[in-house]
């Protein structure tokens, strides 16, 4: 145990560099997946057949490809097509796209859970599609969508470790590098696990808060 604390003090600063990148990757891909997911969901509920089918196929294609393959594709294949991305860019893009499919399905479920009468009431006071979405449907859907959204945040935080496969030196990769050079596997990976857990706890509490609030009305 004494050894652990000693190692922890030594490795903590290096691992913190990894934490910074983990946070950048998580937030970046969270934002991207939210925006893309919202776009797919809107296309899906637009009532325009071509858009909704395009979105449905996109979601299925994205869902059917493992994240790690998506990352390899963006990082190793795109340069052959003339698009060179930095490891960080590829990681955010890949995770963002991969998660956009789940976000879209989550958003769609939230939108479709809104009572049809709400939409009719909005239409009956002359609201068009977009105004109905913005003023009536989305504000109510947010309540429904937030708890699963919080879960996506937690999964995203943990899945950001997949960026290590394309050389992004985030927490997991930093840990692996230290472990392979010091052979202190136990200390290093215990520390890495604890650091992920520490970052997850606020998110877990946030989800609980969302769930309580959603249950209220």
């Amino acid at each position, binding site marked *: 145990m004494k050894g652990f604390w000693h190692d922890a003090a030594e490795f903590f600063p290096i691992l913190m560099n990894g934490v910074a990148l983990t946070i950048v990757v998580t937030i970046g891909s969270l934002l991207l997946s939210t925006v893309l997911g919202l776009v797919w969901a809107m296309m899906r509920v637009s009532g325009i057949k071509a858009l909704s089918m395009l979105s449905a196929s996109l979601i299925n294609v994205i869902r059917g490809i493992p994240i790690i393959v998506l990352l390899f594709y963006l990082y190793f294949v795109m340069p052959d097509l003339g698009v060179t991305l930095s490891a960080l860019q590829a990681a955010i893009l890949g995770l963002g796209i991969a998660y956009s499919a789940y976000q879209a399905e989550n958003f769609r479920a939230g939108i479709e859970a809104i009572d049809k009468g709400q939409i009719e009431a909005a239409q*009956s006071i002359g609201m068009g599609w977009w105004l109905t979405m913005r003023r009536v449907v989305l504000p109510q859907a947010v309540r429904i969508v937030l708890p699963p959204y919080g879960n996506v945040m937690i999964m995203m935080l943990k899945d950001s470790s997949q960026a290590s496969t394309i050389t992004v030196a985030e927490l997991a990769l930093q840990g692996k590098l230290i472990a392979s050079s010091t052979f202190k596997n136990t200390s290093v990976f215990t520390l890495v696990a604890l650091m992920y857990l520490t970052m997850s706890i606020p998110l877990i509490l946030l989800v609980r808060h969302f769930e309580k609030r959603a249950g209220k009305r």
Partner: protein
Amino acid sequence: MIELNDVHKSFGKVEVLKGITASVEKGEVVCIIGPSGSGKSTILRCINGLESYDRGEISVEGLKVHRDAPSIVNIRTQVSMVFQRFNLFPHRTVLENVVEGPLFVKKEPRAQVLERGRALLAQVGLAEKADAHPPQLSGGQQQRVAIARALAMQPKAILFDEPTSALDPELVGDVLGVMRKLADDGMTMVVVTHEMGFARDVADRVLFIDGGVIVEQGPAKALLNQPKHPRTQDFLRRVLHPL
């Protein structure tokens, strides 16, 4: 003001409106009565384009109702609707519900709209509930807010789709009272209802619909007191004397 000419409408293979021809004059109160599934609500929903129709023509002040045409917004801002299940926006306060349309659809000046909203809430007896949220109100109160929301659009006519059917019996009177007052003030109203007392006392005309056609129509008192068609007689007997 509202004209329906040989309107047909089918849901899949079921034809719910089989040639409805009727008109509503300015300032007139028309009640539509008839058994469940007779197409009463569908008529209302076609008038403001919540439903499309297959054949015939509906027009409001000479403007043809076409659900997917941009002009439908114009029609909906002139013809408000009150729903059976209120359909208030639960995430907004009572006052916000009332001013939503004028503020965001008609883009009227905020201060003026808020003032009108409060006046309308006072008119339906709910001035003190302006900052409450709809789920905190009783059904009768919610329906009165819905009427204020409809009025806030300053419509030329209001469609009422069974406005008291979802209410506890003791709350029906408040809503009917507000509606009666509107009628007295000269509002053009089309009311789908099972409240025969209201129809008799307030309506100018009554249409009896059954099986997607207008079976009988005429002045409210005459039709309700001395129905001519056997189906009208049968329907009224069942409604007025269920035992």
